[in-house]
C-alpha cells in the first residue's frame, strides 16, 4: 500500500553550541548569532518517513513547517533528502504562538492537506524543548498518537508497529492508521542529501522568496511546478483568529533569566549535620533550591 505521509519540521536556532552571546540582555534568544537549522529530531522523523516510502513505493512525503518565510529552507533540505514537496505555514497573525496555538494552527493546515495516513514529527524541538506540539496535534485531529519512536513499520493491513524508546526499556506498540508518531533522537540519523535531488531542486522557492529573485529566474520557477514550495496563511487554513498567534496563546512567560554558574571550586564538607544544615540554608537563600 502506498502512504500519504506528513512530516512536521521546525527551523530552530542551533542551541547545541551556545556561546556567550547566545542570549540578549533581556533574556531572549539572540537569533542573529545562532544559525537556523533543521530541528534534529525532525530529521530523525524524516528518515522514518523515507524508510516508509522505500518500503511502500508510490508513497508521498509532504513536509509541513510553521514559522517565518525563511523556514522554506527546511522544506528544501527535506526535499534534497527525499521528501516530495512541502508547505510553509507563515503569517504575521501566527506569531507569538505557544504550543496550544501552534498545534491548533498546524492541525488546521493538516486538515487542509486532508488526505493523510501517518504524521511524523520529532519528539521535541531544541529551542522550546516542550515535546507538546505533536501530541496536541493528535488530540486535535482526534487520532491515535505514539511517542518516542525509534522504528516505524507499516504493514499491508494498514497497521503501524512502533518501537518506543522509554526510560527503562523498549516497548513495541501497534496502532491503526491514520496515526501521529513522534520520533526520538536515538532513531537512525537522516540519510544525506542526494546529489541529483540537490541539483534538481536547488532553485525551489516559496512565493515570498521568489518575489526577491530576478525576473528571468521568476519565470524559470513559474515554468516548473516542482520548484514551487507552497506558502499558506492563517486564513487559507481557515484558522479561528482567536485561537492562533499571541491571542490564542494562554502561556505567558513571566521572566527569562540567564543563569550563570559562579562557583569555581569544589567545597569539602565534613560529615556532620551542622555543616549540611548550613549549606541547605545557603542554597535556599540563594534560590538554588526551594
Amino acid at each position, binding site marked *: 500500500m502506498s502512504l500519504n505521509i506528513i512530516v512536521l519540521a521546525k527551523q530552530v536556532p542551533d542551541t547545541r553550541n551556545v556561546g556567550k552571546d547566545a542570549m540578549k540582555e533581556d533574556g531572549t534568544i539572540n537569533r542573529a548569532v545562532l544559525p537556523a537549522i533543521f530541528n534534529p529530531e525532525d530529521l530523525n522523523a524524516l528518515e522514518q518517513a523515507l524508510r516508509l516510502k522505500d518500503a511502500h513505493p508510490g508513497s508521498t512525503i509532504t513536509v509541513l513547517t510553521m514559522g517565518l518565510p525563511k523556514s522554506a529552507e527546511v522544506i528544501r533540505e527535506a526535499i534534497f533528502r527525499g521528501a516530495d514537496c512541502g508547505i510553509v505555514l507563515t503569517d504575521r497573525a501566527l506569531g507569538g504562538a505557544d504550543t496550544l496555538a501552534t498545534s491548533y494552527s498546524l492541525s488546521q493546515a493538516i486538515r487542509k492537506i486532508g488526505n493523510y495516513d501517518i504524521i511524523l514529527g520529532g519528539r521535541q524541538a531544541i529551542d522550546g524543548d516542550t515535546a507538546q506540539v505533536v501530541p496536541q496535534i493528535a488530540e486535535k485531529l482526534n487520532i491515535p498518537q505514539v511517542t518516542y519512536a525509534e522504528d516505524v513499520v507499516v504493514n499491508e493491513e494498514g497497521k503501524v508497529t512502533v518501537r518506543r524508546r522509554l526510560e527503562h526499556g523498549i516497548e513495541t506498540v501497534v496502532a491503526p492508521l491514520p496515526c501521529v508518531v513522534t520520533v526520538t533522537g536515538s532513531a537512525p540519523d537522516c540519510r544525506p542529501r542526494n546529489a541529483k*535531488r540537490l541539483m534538481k531542486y536547488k532553485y525551489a522557492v516559496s512565493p515570498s522568496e521568489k518575489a526577491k529573485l530576478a525576473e528571468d529566474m521568476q519565470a524559470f520557477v513559474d515554468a516548473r511546478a516542482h520548484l514551487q514550495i507552497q506558502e499558506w496563511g492563517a486564513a487559507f487554513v481557515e484558522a479561528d483568529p482567536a485561537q492562533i498567534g499571541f491571542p490564542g496563546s494562554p502561556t505567558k512567560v513571566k521572566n527569562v533569566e540567564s543563569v550563570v554558574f559562579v562557583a569555581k571550586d569544589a567545597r569539602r564538607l565534613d560529615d556532620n549535620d551542622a555543616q549540611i544544615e548550613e549549606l541547605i540554608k545557603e542554597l535556599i537563600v540563594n534560590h538554588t533550591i526551594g
Partner: protein
Amino acid sequence: MANFFTDNPDLLHHLNHPMMRKIVELKERNFADAEQFDYAPLNFEDAMDNYTRVLEVVGDICANIIAENAESVDHEGASCSDGRAHYASATVENLKACRQAGLMGMAMPRRFGGLNFPITPYIMAADIVSRADTGFENLWGLQDCAETLYEFGNEDQRARFIPRVCEGETMSMDLTEPDAGSDLQSVMLRATQKEDGTWVLNGVKRFITNGDSDIHLVLARSEEGTKDGRGLSMFIYDKRNGGVTVRRIENKMGIKGSPTCELVYKNAPAELCGSRRMGLIKYVMALMNGARLGIAAQSVGCSEIAYREALAYAKDRRQFGKAIIEFPAVAEMIAVIKAKLDASRSLLYECARYVDLYKALEDIARERTLTPEERKECKQYNRLADALTPMAKGLGSEYCNQNAYDCIQIHGGSGFMKDYACERLYRDARITSIYEGTTQLQVVAAIRHVTTGTYKALIDSYAANEVRPELQAIKDRLAALTEKYVAAVEHVNAVNDPTFLDFMARRLVEMAGNLVMSYLLLLDANRDAAFEKSLNVYVNLAASEITRHAEFIHTFDPAQLPTYLQH
C-alpha cells in the same frame, strides 16, 4: 556540522581554476542536457554551483560518517567465508550513505543515470573520501572502471551495466595473477569462446581489490597459444551470473577495509568488451591511467589527514613548558608536510584538468568528427595527461608516505601506539606507492617525457605567465633551477646508454616533478596569497633536491654502474 569540503579552502581554490570554464563547456556542450534532464546545469555558473554543492555533500558524509567509521573498519577489516568476501559492518554503512547521496557513477553521462561530472570535481571527491578513510577510497573509487566500460564497451553494454554502477553497484578490475603482477603480459586466465559465440573464463586472479564486486572488468587470454600482451582481451563478468568464487582474502598491513581477493574462475560466463587482442595494449592501459589518477587523489587525501593530525598534535602536546610546535625542529616538519601536500595537490588537479580536456574532446569525437584544430588539441592534452599522471601518482604517493612517516614522528612515542590515527594512516599510506604500478614503474612511464621534452615544454609554458612583483624573485630562482634540470637531462642524453638512462631516470623525473610542482604553486600563489607560505617552503625543498640530483648526475662516472647493478 563538520565538513571536509568546506573546512578546506584549498579545494575550492583548485575547483575554481580558470581552465574549468573550458572543461565545463566541452563536457556540457551548449548545456543541451538541460532540455532533457531536470538536474542538468543551465550554464557554466550553474554547473560550478552544482559541483560545489555536491562536494559539500561529499564533505558532509566524509566528515560525519566515513571518518567516524574509519577506526572500526580498520579494526574489524574485511573477511572471507563461503567463497565470498564480506565488508566490515561500517563499510556497508559507508557504501549505503554514498548510494543514498547518489555519489556513484559521478562522471558517467546522464543518459545512463550518472551526474556527468568532469574528472576534476570527481577526483576532488576522491581526495576528500581518502582523507576520511584512505582504504574506503578504493571501494568508492573503483566506480571509475565504468569510465573504461563507457569508452570501450558497446552501447548495449553501456546501457546494461553503467546504470547499475550509478545505482551503487561496485566494480573491480581483475588484472593481476600469481605470476603476473607488474608484468601483465604474462596473464594466463583463459577465455574460451563456445560454439554459440559466448565466452567463459577459467583460472585464478590474485591481489584483486574489491574482488567480490558486482561488475568485473577482467583481463584474460583469449588467443590460445599466445604468450604476450597481444593475446589478451578484456571481458565483463557480471556477478549475477556466478562462476567466480573468492578463495581467500589477503591479510594486509593497511587499507584493511578494502578486501584484496584471490578469485577462482570456473567456467564463469563473461562477455567481450571492445575488440579481441586489445585488452592489455589499449583498454587496460586506459583503465590503469584512470586508476593511477585515483591513487594520486588517494595519496593527497591521505597526506591531508596526516598533515591535520600532525598539526593538531603538535599544537596540543606540551613539553618543556610549551607546545611542541614552538620548537623549530617540529615546526619545520609541519611546514614541509604542508608544502608537500599542497604541491602534490596542485599537480593532482593540473593532471585531472588535462585528463578532462582530452577525454571531453574524445567523447565529442564519438558524436562528430573533430576539426583538425580540435584533434591537435586533443592530442596535446592527452600527451600532457600521459606525462602528468605517472608524476602525480609516483611523487604524490611518495610524499604521502613521507608525510605519514613524519606525522608519526611528531607524535613521538604516542604515534607508535595504536591510540592515535597516525599509525593507521602510516599503514594505509604504504600501499599508495606500490599498487597501480610501483613508483619505479611510474618513473618508467614518465622518463620518456623527460627525454622528449614534454615536461620542459610544460615548464616553459608556466614560466611564460606574468606574476605579481613580490613573486618575481621566486620565479627567477625557478628559471635558474630549470637550467640545472636541462643540463642534467643533456648530460644523461649525451652518455647515450639506455642502462645509464634507466639508472638516472628516477632522479630526472623527480627534478622535473620538483619544477612542475614549484611552478604550479607559484601560479596558485599568484591567484591566492594563501599559497605563498607553501610556495616558499616547497621551492627551498625543490632547490635542494634538484641541486643534489644534479650533483650526483654530473659527478657520476658511468664506469661505476656495475658497482650498483651487479650482485
